[in-house]
């Protein structure tokens, strides 16, 4: 009889779940704005706990900045305007994706340069190996010694 109680509990839980989900679901324009706010806050770094975005962080500053993003979306600001607002206050450091500028060229081009450098190095190495002269002929003494070794007439430990 116990399994029947379990089944009943499961059924009740399943019936309860959609009701909860429905409660958490925002509607209409709100959901678009909320999605935008989440997307933006994922792109911005929390300055208190620097390895988290302000979407992930529970630091008070992150909460305030999320509030700021929501307010600005509410005020009709575009995503670019909001990002510019954050950069004006906290610098490029708030961006998880640094902008391409004179000071960040190395950052962006670095990996490509490394791959290119490695490739050039590899090509040159292979070309040099192919162009290398074939191993030189044995000198007469070496030839004689090799023959003796092959014939087994010399002590190999010598």
């Amino acid at each position, binding site marked *: 009889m116990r399994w029947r109680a379990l089944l009943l509990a499961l059924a009740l839980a399943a019936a309860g779940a959609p009701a909860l989900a429905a409660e958490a679901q925002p509607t209409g324009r709100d959901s678009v704005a909320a999605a935008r706010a989440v997307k933006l806050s994922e792109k911005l770094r929390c300055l208190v706990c*620097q390895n988290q975005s302000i979407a992930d962080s529970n630091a*008070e500053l992150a909460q*305030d*900045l999320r509030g*700021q993003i929501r307010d600005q979306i509410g005020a009709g600001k575009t995503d670019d305007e909001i990002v510019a607002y954050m*950069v004006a206050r*906290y610098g*490029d450091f708030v961006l998880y994706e640094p902008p391409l500028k004179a000071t960040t060229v190395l950052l962006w081009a670095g990996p490509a340069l490394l791959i290119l450098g490695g490739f050039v190095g590899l090509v040159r190495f292979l070309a040099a190996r192919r162009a290398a002269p074939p191993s030189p002929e044995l000198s007469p003494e070496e030839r004689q010694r090799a023959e003796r070794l092959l014939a087994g007439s010399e002590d190999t430990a010598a």
Partner: protein
Amino acid sequence: MRLKLLAPLAVFIVICGFLLIGLWRDPREVPSPLIGKPAPAFTLAQLHEPAKTLGPADLKGQVWLLNVWASWCVSCREEHPLLVALGKANIVPIIGLDYKDETTAGKRWLTDNGNPYTTSVVDRDGKVGIDWGVYGVPETFVIDKAGTIRYKQIGPLTAEALETKIVPLIRELQKS
């Protein structure tokens, strides 16, 4: 040929050098984009006289310090004696920004620890803090006569920072 063999070692040593320098740099010290920019405007109620307000516009024409503090802030205690000493020396007006604090707690904190501030203003919801790019309390800004931010100290003031950077900068700015 010898030199060519040493090249990877040289590259390795250079990378090690960069990493080594990185070890001694504080990742919390993010350079502020506000240095050299006009101080963000605000008009906030004063801590001790809530009916009165104060903002950067009222301080134009003089060099001043903005110190962001709070009664809940632990490292503010660390720098506070230095601020009290600086206040006593009467070199420069020090404006306190009581950041995300209860006014009663803020006032009590100043009574207990000494009040170095010419005036303190209350940033209850931290909005002004965001405008000033504040992300950790305490922070201290030096603002020149034209109302431009000239220096920012992130984290508690140190005697060294005061003596070598902040006070000389204030004196220089006051001369101009």
